[in-house]
């Protein structure tokens, strides 16, 4: 059974940096592996349309198991990933936490 090491990194403006290591099993999403390890990552729809679970892939490789509808091309090009449907294909380092989601859009009038 293929297992990949995934390093989760929380870097928020407000909170101290934190890291955790988890391992994903075959066909397991990062969110599922994190839940198995009792780590609370944000999520909403769990099928790729709401963006609550957005993370940013720093190194490694993963595949979305279904269409990542919450992300636009510009987000995908910047390495944003949806952890509810993202299955690692190599060891990964991923920035996680609610702050990542907030980077997807900005105030157009300010």
């Amino acid at each position, binding site marked *: 059974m293929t297992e990949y090491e995934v390093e989760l990194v929380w870097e928020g403006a407000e909170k101290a940096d934190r890291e955790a290591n988890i391992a994903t099993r075959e066909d397991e999403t990062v969110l599922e592996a994190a839940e198995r390890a009792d780590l609370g990552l944000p999520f*909403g*729809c769990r099928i790729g*349309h*709401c*963006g609550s679970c957005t993370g940013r892939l720093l190194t490694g490789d993963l595949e979305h198991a279904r269409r990542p509808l*919450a992300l636009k091309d510009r987000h995908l090009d910047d390495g944003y990933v949806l952890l509810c449907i993202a299955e690692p294909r190599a060891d990964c380092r991923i920035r996680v936490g609610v702050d990542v*989601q907030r980077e997807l*859009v900005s*105030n157009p009038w*300010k």
Partner: protein
Amino acid sequence: MSDTESPSEASAHEHHEHHHDVEGPGYATPQAAVEQSEREKVAYVMSLYVGTDVDAPDFLAVVDVDPESDTYAEVIDRVEMPNVGDELHHFGWNACSSSCHVEGLERRHLIVPGNRSSRLHVVDTKNRENPEMVKTIEPEEVHDHDLSAPHTVHCIPDGEILVSMLGDADGDLPGGFLELNDDFEVVGRWDAPGDIEKNYDFWYQPRQNVMVSSEWAAPKVYQPGFDMADVEAGNYGHQLHFWDWENREVVQTVDLGEEGMIPLEVRFLHTPESTHGFVNAALSSNIFHFWEDRESGEYRAEKVVDFEAREHPDWDMPVPALPTDILLSMDDRYLFGGNWLHGELYMYDVSDPKNPRRADTLSVGGLFGDVQELGGRDIVGGPQMIQLSLDGERLYWTTSLYSTWDNTFFPEEAEKGSVMLKADVNPRKGTMTLDEEFMVDFGEMPNGPARAHEMRWPDGDCTSDVWQ
């Protein structure tokens, strides 16, 4: 009834066919709701942690609004959802005045959807102060009908429940409607798939055999946050759909155009005689009046209120008002609403619905509100969801719109939590006064600061009750 006949004249016609010897839920007429209702004692409020650092489930808050009580203006109970991440948003009753002829039916169960999760919760309010979660419908069962992202809940006559759904099973378009039976089981899809693309709120007026629905956007568009690229790509709605209520099909679509971007809350007048209503176009900062032209039998819509954008020293572009919620008083005389970005509540006399007359405004919260602090804490965000007492004398509001949109426009809401505030309304004079003694601080919840969204009263309210 002529197009401009006033609601009080209309209700004088009184040719409805209720059997008053039968005890169903609600009130026989809107006027009966005004006259016979008791003052609200508790409010149910959607409260949430989505988009904050707090890893806890959203909850239904029970707020004490009885001034005689020792716990006045406090959250006295919280019904936690079984999962995190739902994004509680709008919710509704299993029964309202539209079933007031149905013996044995009670206004007792709240249907509480998770807008992100597509999970539906049923809460029993038999004990009004300590309601109880009795059932959940899991997302898979909703997806089975190629629907997601539940929004507005209206009971429909005889105990059935209709929920507007903003997306298909993937969170893309088209949306539609989900029907539940009186045992809170999914009956199936109410509409023909593809009859509409975008969906949001709806209201029905059974005596006129009409339902109206409005448009936000696909879940994949609005859920990740507000992105101007989506406006430019035409991904946001600007249409109203008028349905044949009996036949469940769209008979007319009215395009509101550039001035009608993101039409949200649709409110028919309460009097069942009327075919007049209003909708707030949030992004264009306008309010539209819609009505049936009696000669052609077609619906028309016309902009009747226009809120100007305002310059703010810290913003590059003029700030739009963003009127995100409106409601009509039970006697159909006043339209209330809030400009969320500006920080303003407004009250219009709509006795002549074609010509709303501004009665009063209140400047509070948001970017320009005169009042920015109450009871020693900052008010973050302008008035957002509003709710009026049945007698029309107390207007309450909360300050959170939607987690991702809050995070873009009022990011402090995540750290400080929302507030619920109140104004005293004088319907005779057409005035509102901020009640400085009333503040419910959702920043002080056991798990951490929470957002607060829609509110409902146990005995029905101006945003849910419909008459046959």
